């Protein structure tokens, strides 16, 4: 099969294309690879209720340039829609809400396609939209819905391995839940740059040792300029050697030893120069506690290594993960990421040191690549993917959903009730679980306008029987949540749905681009206290 790849011809000046200019502020977050993933995605929104939160989400996905969206919604635009949904106007009154929203959304970005169902006022056939119009990259639906509709969506997403997101916004309260179709690994988690420094000062390799020793063998006879430009990595390697010579060849390991070592480095700085000190030694002193430590395996990576697969079908992620695990077991450390933070040094010295780290990283990645190639299914894997994994090895993350565990809700309820015991003392903010439960209890009720708080509270207690045993304070918080949901009368507040639409869109972007870390798996927003809580349910 031949694929025609259309590419913008490289411009000699390096100036950006029109598209790069338009998307500049987001390309700085997820790069061309993330953008390409967005552009080939197709999102389905099954809309219901007052219909705003899903449309606000789509707005935030159309703007950055998803490929296509489809709206399934059989509602007709009413006067009340115009007071809550910005992507409707008077011209749409009495017409299909799905069509009218689609038309006003595609205006936002000519590169995005939009479609809607039903086309001619016939009843909405969800099986047709699911079966004939996909495949979908992700499916979003707004609550309340009929349970039968939810079941159809769950079945589709389960079969097609599609992430499913349910969102519910009413009055000042809202929540959403992501159902991942299986384990969801992320390589490009974008940790804070300051967290990624990995200098291997306690396990230097020959090339690094030789370089450092070459620079420091006559450290005391260096002139002030040379001494003041030794890279801090070289300074630390030198004084670690000095330390070992007086400590039975052992590195400083306890906190007290590291503080003593830091003092040793600090005292080695020259102060008889015009500046009265040396910046590079200041940098070395500041780096001791963070960088003088043996390599360790972060918990998230342990989880990846320990993951047991239910099925033999495995993606490139898992083949590479196995190879990295093999590397780790053999060498006692992960492949070197290869980055070197900026530090005071002569340009050429810094570049040489940077290349020493880069070369080691390339050798490590090549070793991982060799074992990837030996694995079954590994021969098709792109070396660039192996490089990317190795570079991010310490920060890979596995979202491991445990779907459909009926006991989970009760477990969380116990945890959150216990949490509120402490919240009462003012140690921590109160749990948002009451809001979750009140929303959940009304997730299938088309309108709560005629309900009473007692009805909702009763449904909440059916879901979580422990509620009945609570003392009045805790009980009251659940009752208040029920009252607040009744007050919303199944209508959305635009601001709350705008916040929610932003949060759901962020999560969907993370899922589509496989960059940054999505929630696992439920997020509750309290528009009264202005805060969120994430729970795994």
């Amino acid at each position, binding site marked *: 099969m031949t694929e025609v790849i259309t590419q913008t011809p490289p411009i000699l*000046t*390096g*100036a950006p294309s*029109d598209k*790069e200019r*338009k998307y*500049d*502020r*987001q*390309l*700085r*977050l997820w790069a061309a690879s993330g953008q390409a993933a967005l552009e080939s995605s197709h999102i389905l929104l099954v809309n219901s209720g007052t219909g705003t939160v899903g449309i*606000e989400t789509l*707005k*935030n996905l159309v*703007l*950055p*340039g998803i490929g296509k969206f489809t709206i399934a919604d059989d509602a007709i635009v*009413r*006067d*009340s829609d115009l*007071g*809550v949904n910005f992507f409707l106007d*008077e011209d749409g009154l009495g017409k299909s809400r799905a069509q009218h929203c689609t038309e006003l959304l595609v205006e*936002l*970005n*000519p590169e995005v396609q939009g479609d809607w169902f039903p086309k001619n006022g016939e009843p909405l056939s969800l099986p047709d939209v699911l079966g004939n119009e996909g495949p979908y990259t992700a499916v979003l639906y707004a609550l309340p819905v009929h349970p039968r509709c939810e079941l159809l969506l769950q079945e589709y997403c389960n079969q097609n391995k599609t992430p499913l997101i349910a969102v519910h916004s009413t*009055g*000042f309260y809202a929540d959403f839940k992501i159902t991942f179709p299986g384990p969801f690994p992320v390589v490009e*988690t974008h940790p804070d740059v300051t967290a990624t420094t990995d200098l291997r000062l306690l396990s230097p390799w020959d090339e690094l040792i030789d370089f450092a020793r070459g620079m420091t063998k006559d450290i005391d006879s260096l002139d002030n300029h040379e001494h003041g430009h030794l890279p801090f990595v070289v300074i630390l390697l030198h004084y670690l050697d000095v330390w070992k010579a007086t400590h039975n060849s052992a590195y400083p390991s306890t906190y007290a030893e590291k503080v003593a070592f830091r003092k040793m480095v600090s005292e080695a700085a020259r102060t008889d120069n015009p500046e009265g000190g040396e910046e590079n030694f200041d940098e070395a002193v500041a780096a001791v506690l963070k960088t003088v430590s043996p390599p360790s395996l972060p918990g998230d990576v342990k989880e990846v290594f320990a993951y047991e697969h239910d099925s033999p079908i495995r993606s490139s992620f898992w083949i590479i993960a196995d190879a990295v695990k093999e590397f780790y077991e053999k060498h006692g450390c992960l492949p070197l990421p290869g980055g070197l933070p*900026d530090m005071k*040094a*002569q*340009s*050429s010295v810094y*570049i040489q040191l940077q290349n020493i780290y880069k070369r080691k990283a390339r050798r490590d990645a090549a070793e991982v690549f060799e074992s990837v190639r030996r694995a079954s299914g590994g021969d098709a894997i792109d070396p660039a993917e192996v490089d990317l994994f190795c570079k991010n090895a310490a920060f890979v993350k596995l979202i491991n959903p445990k779907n459909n565990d009926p006991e989970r809700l009760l477990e969380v309820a116990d945890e959150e009730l216990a949490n509120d015991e402490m919240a009462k003392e003012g140690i921590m903010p109160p749990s948002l679980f009451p809001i979750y439960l009140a929303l959940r209890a009304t997730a299938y009720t088309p309108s709560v306008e005629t309900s009473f708080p007692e009805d909702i509270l009763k449904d909440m207690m059916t879901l979580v029987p422990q509620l009945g045993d609570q003392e009045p304070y805790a009980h009251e918080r659940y009752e208040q949540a029920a*009252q*607040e949901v009744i*007050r919303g009368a199944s*209508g959305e*507040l*635009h*601001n709350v749905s*705008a*916040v929610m*639409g*932003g*949060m759901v*869109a*962020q999560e969907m*972007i993370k899922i589509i681009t496989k960059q*940054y*870390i999505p*929630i*696992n798996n439920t997020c509750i927003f309290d528009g*009264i206290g*202005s*805060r*969120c809580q*994430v729970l795994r349910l």
Partner: protein
Amino acid sequence: MSDVTMAEATSAYTPESTRVDETKRWTYVDNIRTNPGPFSDPIAGTQEAIEQFDKIKVLGAGGLGCEILKNLAMSKFRDIHVIDMDTIDVSNLNRQFLFRKDDVGKFKAEVAAAFVMRRVKGVDITPHNCRIQDFDAEFYKQFQFVICGLDSIEARRWINAMLVSIAEEGEDADSLIPMIDGGTEGFKGQARVIVPTITSCIECQLDMHAPRAAVPLCTIASIPRQPEHCIEWAHVIAWDQEKPFPQLDKDDPEHITWLYQKALSRAQEFKIEGVTYSLTQGVVKNIIPAIASTNAIISGACCNEAFKLATSAAPPLGIEDNYMMYSGNDSIYTYTFKHEKKPDCPVCGQLSRPLQVNPRMTLQDLVDSLAVRPEAQLKKPSIRAESKTLYMQFPPSLEEQTRANLDKTLLDLGLEDGQNVVVTDPAYPLEFNFSLQFKKEV
């Protein structure tokens, strides 16, 4: 300013639609406004509260303007002003959703106001295509709230100082104009509510926005190691030496291309990798990544606070918790807390703020350090001690007279430990009081 065109626009405009039943239209908002909930203020839902709401006049400003205007209009605010001096750039289109490709080059405030008035019949939005600093206290006093999505710390500090001074000089509660401030960077952002003189203000919170550490000039000039160092060299050294164009325009691709090529050849000379056009632009313009979804979250949170303040339908941020931090990089995390008012805040506090100094530093060092210290961040400071002028940036004659002081140390100038100094800066309409704290000699 385009007052003439605005007047025309207003006269030609039908305030409410004839096709929509306005009562039905606002069903959901009015539900919340008229039915108090378990957390509402007792005034919520009363006739008084309803009438008060309808008279509210609110001001929005800055890069979150599109979202803020949409949200305010959809919250049934009817009288909105918007200030934005910027014109639309193609790089705004990925998030500022009221603008289209054809609008590039037009004033943001004008295009945004016209769009929202077209979409939401009955709302009146007055655009001002200028800087917030172009208005005086009289202008700001007409509003009940100010919502800012400004992209510069300087503009935030200016409007904060303005609103605090209105509150200090005012006699009744009407002079307390809450400021709701939002800002974003990538997947992160913050929303906060400031009640001038009552709660912690932007200046109290200044250290939460510490400026990025500057790269030392000697690194840029002689020992570059990073692509950014090469770009800074092209920007601050090569440009001045060669003056390829009369004035650097950071939005002109030709100028950026010149800097990029200069930086690239310097990088090649030092064997440094990673200079790209995009990085050049990012460093020179100090570009902060921005996406639609984060702007939606933060603007929604800000307007939700405005709605709560205006309706009493639920307790707003302010007196207790006043600050919400949002982070979406790793799962979702919010931290909502009370930022305490600082008694030594130069804007809303009574005490002067301590400034740690070395008595042997020169006045020039002190002046330079004021720009980078997180608690000051003043770029063009003039300084005077109780009875004598130490250094004045303006006017030129005074600058010349006081310039000789710059080379003197604080001790030479006769300054003492604990001495109060007053600093002014043309960017802010106020005086900053600092007290010098001499560092002990080691």
